[in-house]
């Protein structure tokens, strides 16, 4: 069929499956069975939806080389690796939908493994901070319609969440904020002048690793104890911090967004706890809410699904026969750096790129099963590679936006590959079959004994 004869259709209100903004205003032009154009998306979202080079068939590594196999062979081999492992790690889950995450938790429990998500190299410290302190939250819709002060602390949405300002925060016009950017103040705190900082009314550049101290100084000003604050904190003059605290207290509705600038630097979860304490204290003066800038489009979803299935949001160890949660011991980087896992299944993630090199070296020592639409460095380390459909493009499902709102991802085109949920179902069936076979093989011996 020639290009002209191909049927073109337009899908509106499509959700973007890149970042935690989960923008739902994309317009996608589809020609035949291919995404031809994406409108209203940022560069990150358009790149994802337009598609990249894919893994075409399931593969198993034989004599050092990945060789094509059937899906069933790949499921059986994956099941064999997981069942034979003493403490498998099932990692990733942020770039897939909740339906697949639920199956992943079931599989982890079946094989007595550890389930962890990419949150542990991202906003894991935020989750720990929130568990300790509580969070004064809001939806992005409430912020759009009400916030007259936006604070970005240790985050750079201009590059990591490019439509955040236009849809939810700094520049959008809302019900009580009809003037958009003109009617709002923007305060940015960071260790470098980012693109986001260039859009700020006030930018405070702090010394690397001084977030905790600067947050503490702001808390002192908010509490009316500014006389005890030293002349400089985190390299910032006291007067400048006083002005920032005043700006926050003067807001009618403030929204404080924070990113990996505080979760990845000295203090980590304690930085987050201090930021949450500042926001709680600001609520004695005005209305203030706080939100982590979640990275992957459904990293919030795995936290939700894991919490309702197991009681814990990440780093869940089932090897004791019940769910056990102790980041620092049971997070993916912890078990890999201790060489305390003997097989790893990676779903919709790329730890080979995103973990510290020393930990990746340990990952390379154990059998790795990869489920992903795309080839990435983790593929180079994998024993079993299983391609899947792209959620939100080739299959539907549920995802959670960074503010905890559950949204339904659409299927836009057909895929030759099963969904992540379908692949996990296949592996679960193979595990059952393997266990059944093992039980049958064991039964005569038991009978004779």
């Amino acid at each position, binding site marked *: 069929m020639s290009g002209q004869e191909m049927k073109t259709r337009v899908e509106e209100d499509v959700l973007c499956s890149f970042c935690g903004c989960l923008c739902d205003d994309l317009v996608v032009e589809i020609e035949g069975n291919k995404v031809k154009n994406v409108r209203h998306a940022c560069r990150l979202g358009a790149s994802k939806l337009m598609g990249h080079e894919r893994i075409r068939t399931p593969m198993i590594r034989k004599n050092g080389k990945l060789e094509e196999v059937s899906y069933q062979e790949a499921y059986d081999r994956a099941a064999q690796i997981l069942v034979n492992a003493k403490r498998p790690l099932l990692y990733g889950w942020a770039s897939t939908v909740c339906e697949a995450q639920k199956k992943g938790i079931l599989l982890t429990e079946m094989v007595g493994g550890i389930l962890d998500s990419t949150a542990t190299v991202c906003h894991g410290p935020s989750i720990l901070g929130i568990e300790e302190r509580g969070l004064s939250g809001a939806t992005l819709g409430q912020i759009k319609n009400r916030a007259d002060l936006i604070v970005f602390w240790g985050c750079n949405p201009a590059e990591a969440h490019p439509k955040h300002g236009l849809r939810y925060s700094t520049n959008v016009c809302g019900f009580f904020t009809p003037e958009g950017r003109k009617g709002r103040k923007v305060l940015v705190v960071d260790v470098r002048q980012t693109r986001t900082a260039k859009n700020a009314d006030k930018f405070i550049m702090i010394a690397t690793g001084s977030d905790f101290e600067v947050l503490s100084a702001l808390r002192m000003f908010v509490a009316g104890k500014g006389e005890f604050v030293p002349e400089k904190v985190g390299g910032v003059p006291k007067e400048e911090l006083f002005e920032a605290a005043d700006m926050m207290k003067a807001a009618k509705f403030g929204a404080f967004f924070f990113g990996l600038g505080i979760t*990845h630097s000295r203090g980590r979860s304690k930085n987050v706890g201090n930021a949450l304490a500042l926001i709680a204290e600001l609520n004695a003066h005005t209305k203030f809410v706080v939100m982590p800038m979640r990275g992957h489009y459904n990293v919030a979803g795995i936290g939700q699904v894991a919490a309702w299935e197991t009681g814990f949001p990440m780093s869940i160890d089932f090897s004791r026969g019940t769910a056990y949660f102790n980041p*620092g011991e049971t997070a993916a980087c912890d078990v890999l750096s201790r060489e305390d896992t003997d097989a790893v299944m990676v779903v919709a993630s790329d730890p080979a790129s995103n973990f510290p090199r020393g930990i990746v070296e340990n990952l390379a020592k154990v059998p790795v099963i990869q489920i992903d639409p795309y080839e990435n460095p983790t593929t180079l*380390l994998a024993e079993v590679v299983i391609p899947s459909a792209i959620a939100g493009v080739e299959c539907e499902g549920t995802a959670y936006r960074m503010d905890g709102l559950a949204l339904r991802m659409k299927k836009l085109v057909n895929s030759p590959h099963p969904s992540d949920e379908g692949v996990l179902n296949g592996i679960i069936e193979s595990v059952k079959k393997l266990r059944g076979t093992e039980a049958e093989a064991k039964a005569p011996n038991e009978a004779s004994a």
Partner: protein
Amino acid sequence: MISGRTLAQGAWCESKMCDDFTKAASLCFLSEGDFKALNLSGGRNVLVKSAYGRVVMAPRIDKGLPPGMIFMAMGPWANSLVGPDTGGCGTPQFKGIEVDLEPTDEPVMDVRSMFTNLRGAKT
């Protein structure tokens, strides 16, 4: 050293095996003063060393950086310098890592080369 998302790194992060990803994620940004002090003009690369590893990257000026700080796009190059300790919370410290820099004529490794030795170790 701090690392994080850039637009170009994000746009290619679902296509990591292509040259564009290597170009986007193997950049080391420095302040203008540090760039000049290290004499990095003329297309020279920079060798970055931490207590945990070393990596060669292509240097670029970022006028938003203060002296003494470098920024890298997140990815396997930056993570060559990150240690495994999670500080009891499961998350390595990806930002605020002390590093030494020097000009070098060594080339930047492409993404496949970064992992070839690891696979060799396994098989």
